[in-house]
């Protein structure tokens, strides 16, 4: 029986394992150095804040693995020997494989800052990171978080839940400036400040200072300001966790290089998820996409290939979502931080400054290209249909109510939105009533 070994029990590795099991009787082994069982790392913040216990982050009960004949091995792979198809684990054990799947994830970026390896200086990615945050929290009065992205805002929310003050250093002139357009960046920046975060724009980290025990005691910014703190969060993105693979036979760049079938340059070795980098993304998206659902989709795809149904990775339209303190964010299609030359935009913001809808469309055809929404939930299927079939703005405005996914009784803003669109464009469009038929009929 063919032995499939998967390194990494995150969403990519586990999805691969589950779908191989659905489609075959192959022997499956999953190796993880992090935890015994798969958990959802997106929920680590909720464990810290007391919304959940660690057990709640596990999507499958512990008996699931044995029942589905997925062997779990706790250990770190030190070295891969593609020639005789074996893995060396720290501690001396060795495991043979017929096919190897690398789902080793990523690690927080460190950009060579002096002091970046001190105690109480860390990112938030792994279970061990959570444990370490727990360890340092009781003796932390102020934390400095470096890097204005999703993990940074999670970390800020976590510390505030324990009454720890937060200073948040952001390199750009607004929150998540590399991703969000100015309007949304400012909206979220206002909301973060409302939660009493000391948010500093255009500020970069110069150096982290140590106390006599080797723990962070302060940081110095590029402008030379010293900020006293007992914890430094490094949340300026993540990069593939592939140190043990580099300098071997497997070709790497920032990540492990793969083709559209998620195959590396070495036969019978595959890579996916956070650690995989496409030579050329099959659908023109970024070559390195470190989000939850792409790991899951890659896992479903790779399992097909491994089970002899060779399938190329074809993610559809880009989408994503997040929550910044109390404001939810969803995006469908592409809304870049700056408009491209062929793009035009429509932006509506509620007078409370916490709800907005940002539509980007083609200048000439008026076809919808992307949606950003804050504080309004939208229906994925409807948005996808609009974007992939290139519906124009008039159609979008008239059918806006179909896309609303907010809970029942929530105030709806479609009429306001369409009114503003009419005023700006001299049109006389009206938002039609929501229609179940339109919503549920496929295509």
């Amino acid at each position, binding site marked *: 029986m063919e032995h499939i070994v998967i390194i990494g029990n995150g969403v990519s590795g586990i999805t691969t394992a589950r779908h191989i099991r659905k489609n075959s009787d192959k022997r499956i082994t999953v190796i993880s150095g992090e935890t015994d069982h798969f958990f959802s790392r997106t929920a680590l913040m909720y464990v810290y804040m*007391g919304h959940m216990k660690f057990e709640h982050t596990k999507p499958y009960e512990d008996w699931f693995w044995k029942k589905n004949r997925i062997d779990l091995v706790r250990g770190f792979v030190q070295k891969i020997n593609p020639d005789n198809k074996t893995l060396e684990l720290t501690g001396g054990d060795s495991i043979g494989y017929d096919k190897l799947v690398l789902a080793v994830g990523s690690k927080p970026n460190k950009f060579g800052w002096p002091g970046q390896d001190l105690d109480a200086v860390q990112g938030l990615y792994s279970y061990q990171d959570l444990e370490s945050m727990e360890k340092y929290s009781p003796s932390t009065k102020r934390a400095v978080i470096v890097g204005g992205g999703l993990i940074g805002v999670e970390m800020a929310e976590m510390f505030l839940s324990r009454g720890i003050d937060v200073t948040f250093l952001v390199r750009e002139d607004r929150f998540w400036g590399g991703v969000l357009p100015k309007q949304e960046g400012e909206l979220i920046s206002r909301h973060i400040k409302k*939660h009493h975060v000391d948010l500093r724009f255009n500020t970069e980290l110069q150096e982290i200072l140590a106390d006599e025990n080797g723990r962070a005691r302060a940081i110095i910014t590029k402008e030379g300001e010293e900020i006293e703190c007992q914890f430094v969060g490094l949340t300026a993105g993540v990069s593939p966790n592939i140190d043990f693979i580099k300098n071997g036979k497997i070709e790497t760049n920032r990540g492990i290089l793969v083709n559209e079938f998620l195959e590396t340059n070495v036969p019978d070795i595959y890579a996916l998820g956070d650690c995989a980098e496409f030579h050329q993304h099959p659908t023109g998206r970024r070559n390195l996409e470190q989000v*939850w659902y792409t790991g899951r*989709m890659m896992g479903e795809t790779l399992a097909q290939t491994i089970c002899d149904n060779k*399938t190329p990775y074809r993610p559809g339209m880009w989408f994503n*979502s997040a929550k910044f303190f109390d404001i939810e964010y969803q995006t469908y299609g592409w809304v870049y931080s700056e408009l491209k030359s062929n793009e035009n935009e429509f932006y509506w913001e509620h007078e409370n400054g916490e709800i907005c809808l940002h539509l980007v469309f083609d200048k000439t055809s008026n076809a919808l290209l992307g949606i950003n929404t804050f504080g309004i939930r939208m229906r994925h299927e409807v948005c996808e249909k609009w974007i992939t079939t290139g519906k124009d703005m008039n159609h979008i405005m008239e059918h806006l109510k179909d896309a609303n*996914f907010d*809970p029942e009784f929530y105030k709806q803003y479609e009429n306001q939105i369409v009114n503003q669109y009419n005023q700006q464009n001299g049109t006389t469009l009206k938002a039609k009533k929501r229609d179940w038929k339109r919503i549920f009929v496929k295509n």
Partner: protein
Amino acid sequence: MKFIKNSGLLICIAGFAFFVGSIFIGDHNVTPEKFNDWVNSKGIKSEIFIKNAEQEIVGKTFSSIQLSSTIIELAEKSTQEHQDNIQLWQNSGGQDEKINEEWSKVIWTSWSSTHKDFTYPLLQATINSPVKENQWLAFFLTFGLAIIGGLLYIIPDFILLGPAGIKNNKLFQHSATNRGWGGIVTAVFFVVFYFLLYFFPDLIINPILTTNKISLSLSGNPASQWFMYGLIYCSVMTVFAVKMYIKYRHNLYQIIRTTVVLFFQVAFAFLIPELLVRFNQPWYDFKNAWPLNYTFFFDWNINSLLNSGHLGMFMLVWGIVLTVIVVPVMVYFLGKRWYCSWVCGCGGLAETLGDPYRHLSNKSLKAWKFERYIIHLVLLFAVVMTGATLYSYFSGATSILGIDTYSIQSWYGFWIGSIFAGVIGTGFYPILGNRAWCRFGCPLAAYLGLVQRFKSRFRITTNGGQCISCGNCSTYCEMGIDVRSYAQKGQNIVRSSCVGCGVCSAVCPRGVLKLENAPEDGRIIDNPILVGKDEIKLQV
């Protein structure tokens, strides 16, 4: 703000302390008149008991426990003698008349059912206590302080919790909400309360008296333990509804739902029935549907409704129409939630007082399997019990297939009505979560669930591929549904147990879940496909 909150807690605790403390004050002085009134009203025929009681009880002063236990002791002693006599008559071969006469002298004092009806009237009539002398003051010191303190404890959260949003911080780190000592103390308090309420109301005459003035002004009758319970129920729900309003002030679904379920409790389960009594009509809760309302078809209820003219007849017909037509039709259009989390009293308490415990429900597959067995067994039990009741009602036979109908009713009343629904269902909120009764025991929920599962427009729609498997939805599902297991597959949630509280949708950080009443077509997705993927569609 912190100061106000802490003072509120102290005031609230003081209210509870007065309430509990009142159990231990005052005494009972049994005068001959009160004793005779009681003997006559109870129709006590045992001359042995009466003689002994006149010696041991009349003219003496007791505490509640002493008086209650002395009565029971004497009753058991006399019953023993009567039963010995019956034995003697039977052994000597007959004299049915004599035997029947002896049987009529037997006093039934089982602690689980008959005890309280026997002793309660005498203890209630004979109490002397400061509470009895100052009923309005007592009301203020108990209910008043507890309510004011509770509100003072809760309202500062409007500021303390920060901007509106999901604030479940520290729920799993606090002993009261994570099965720590705080939770255990609360559970013990609830369980003791329910035991006293259901089985030993004669020991809590003073707490009942604290609500006497309110009862007199509503129904014109002195307060019973059930009136006190109703008032506690409404007060607790009101105070905790305020907590819900603050916690979910960004979520109009929760605010409207909380308001409606509170309205149905206060108006339909409390005020209207009490006012009906004032106008000499039967106590009737128009929203309480059989089989949750398991006594609906009991002979005393049917007779009382039949003897109450047009209104009584309307109540009888309405009760049947409610169960047979209104309930399933509404479930078809709106889901089980219209009843379980919008109207029902049990649900109302679970969604207010119980909200801080919702995350304690068991999400394991084992629990789900257990749930499906036990809740349908209870439904079956309710149907059999009611069937036997109606058979006896129409045929006049007191037993069916050799089993005494009254025993079946008592069994159901004790095990399901009292122990399961009350002691376990509510008493164990801090241990089992807030919906243990609704999930495992409620026969009406089982019935609604069957309709919801197989013929309804209601579902929780999963929004394409946005789920990140974080598990907030499953953690906060009070019914223990593993919502995530559906959401992460892109599958709609169609489960018989879902009461549509809407909290999974509220706590989802990615906008994945929406409660919806939509066309049945495509409601259940057997082979879900994650939206957003263009390659061959995978079967999951």
